[in-house]
């Protein structure tokens, strides 16, 4: 059984919940009072992760931290089709790694801006917003060209990969950090496709694709 040290409002924890839901894998969630309790910084939690951050998973005694590393592990172990982490195809694997690294960038800009606005983290907000827009412009252009090739996802696979899931929540909640997606139509079409993946779940702050926000 997988244990996930989780905070519902964390994008990085949501990435794991999303993949586990899509793969239909059961897990136990241990809520961490990230805010306002700062429980991840407590001595007790640092016995689980000395770096003092979430998410962390423990799978039958095997412990792993860092959002994108956990996605890699979960997809490798629990997706027998091998499509979410295409390890057997060197091209797709390279692209997946490349876009996972891109997701580090969106996390450190768009999601950091969200932490600044929501929780008052002391970051230079203008630098974060500019950085996020730069990445969003690149992503939008990339996805636009993918669509011309009849492809729907960030890699050239006909199937989404964990790279899509790693980037998705940073993008989807960007408006909480004051980063509008108005100018990125290809990104908006891609987020709609992600939200229609079978097994998709929302995190607080998102709405399900079909229903949308009430007016």
């Amino acid at each position, binding site marked *: 059984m997988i244990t996930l040290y989780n905070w*519902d409002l964390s994008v990085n924890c949501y990435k794991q919940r999303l993949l586990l839901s899509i793969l239909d894998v059961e897990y136990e969630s241990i809520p961490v009072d990230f805010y*306002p*309790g700062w429980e991840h910084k407590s001595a007790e939690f640092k016995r689980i992760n000395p770096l003092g951050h979430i998410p962390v998973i423990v799978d039958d005694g095997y412990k792993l931290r860092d959002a994108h590393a956990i996605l890699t592990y979960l997809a490798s172990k629990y997706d027998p089709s091998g499509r979410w982490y295409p390890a057997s195809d060197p091209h797709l694997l390279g692209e997946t790694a490349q876009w996972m690294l891109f997701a580090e960038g969106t996390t450190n800009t768009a999601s950091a801006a969200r932490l600044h606005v929501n929780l008052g983290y002391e970051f230079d907000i203008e630098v974060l917003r500019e950085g996020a827009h730069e990445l969003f412009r690149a992503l939008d252009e990339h996805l636009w060209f993918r669509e011309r090739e009849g492809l729907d996802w960030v890699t050239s696979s006909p199937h989404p990969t964990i790279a899509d899931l790693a980037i998705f929540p940073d993008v989807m909640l960007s*408006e909480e950090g*004051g980063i509008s997606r108005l100018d990125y139509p290809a990104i908006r079409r891609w987020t709609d496709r992600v939200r229609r993946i079978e097994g998709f779940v929302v995190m*607080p*702050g998102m709405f399900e694709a079909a229903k949308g926000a009430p007016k």
Partner: protein
Amino acid sequence: MTTATGHAVCTDPAILNQWYAVAAIPEISVAQVHRTRLLDSSVAYSVTADGECLAWRTAPNDATVTVDASSQLDWLPTRTAFGYLWMSVGEPPPDVFEVQESAEPDRRTLNAATIGIAVSAPRAIENFLDMAHFPYVHPHMLGEEPHTEVADYTTELRNGELWAVDCRFYQPKAAVSSTEGVMAEYLYRVPSPYCAMLYKSSPGDAERMDVIGIFVHPISEEFVRANLFLCLLDDVSSDTTIRRFQQTIFSQDKPILENQYPKRLPLDPRAETPIRADKMAIAYRRWLTDLGVTYGVIPA
């Protein structure tokens, strides 16, 4: 009015002369200077090693690291109430309004969250007072289709506060300790323009009610930090579990609030068709008009 550096600050006496909760006391690191803004003014606060709360006006680029009560500063009035540090940049009443329940020894009093929201304070309050959005924004928790009907209720003024009484709404999971759906009973109370509370039937006590408050800290006319206050009858759930429930609800409201345009609340009754003819929203807007509020609103 403008500050020395030339940016405009709030001059609305109805809003200026109020107390605002700026931080939950357990979350304030002792003997450090914390900077924020209140009604566009740059301010700072600190809790000394002996627990004294200090607040003062600062220059926007202030870098003071330590202060004590003998420092020569532009001091601001402070109070502590229900676990929060309150301050004012105007001439506030002698005390923060009362929440009698917070003195009951068997209650859990805690800050569920302090979250920044890009919205005006009165929009945040109006959303807090609204029941009709429950089934759509908080499905499976505070509401559930097809139970979308808001039964009729009454609004009234009590000692200068705005109240809504006899509110009822079907809730599948009214609180973290709920085990079944209930017809939850609600009372709403607005003791000051940017603070609101609700009293709702508690799964843990047939006689008394849970108290949930939103104490809005207006940074500017269109950005706030909302403090979510809980005073619950629940001796079972952990703080983490309770916060988790409320934070989820809060983050569901956030995108709705941030997508409202205009961000300021129009007080003219004809400005926005009350979508659901919500009585409390109309009463709140009229009450703000009667108080002469101009900050964070589009006056009628």
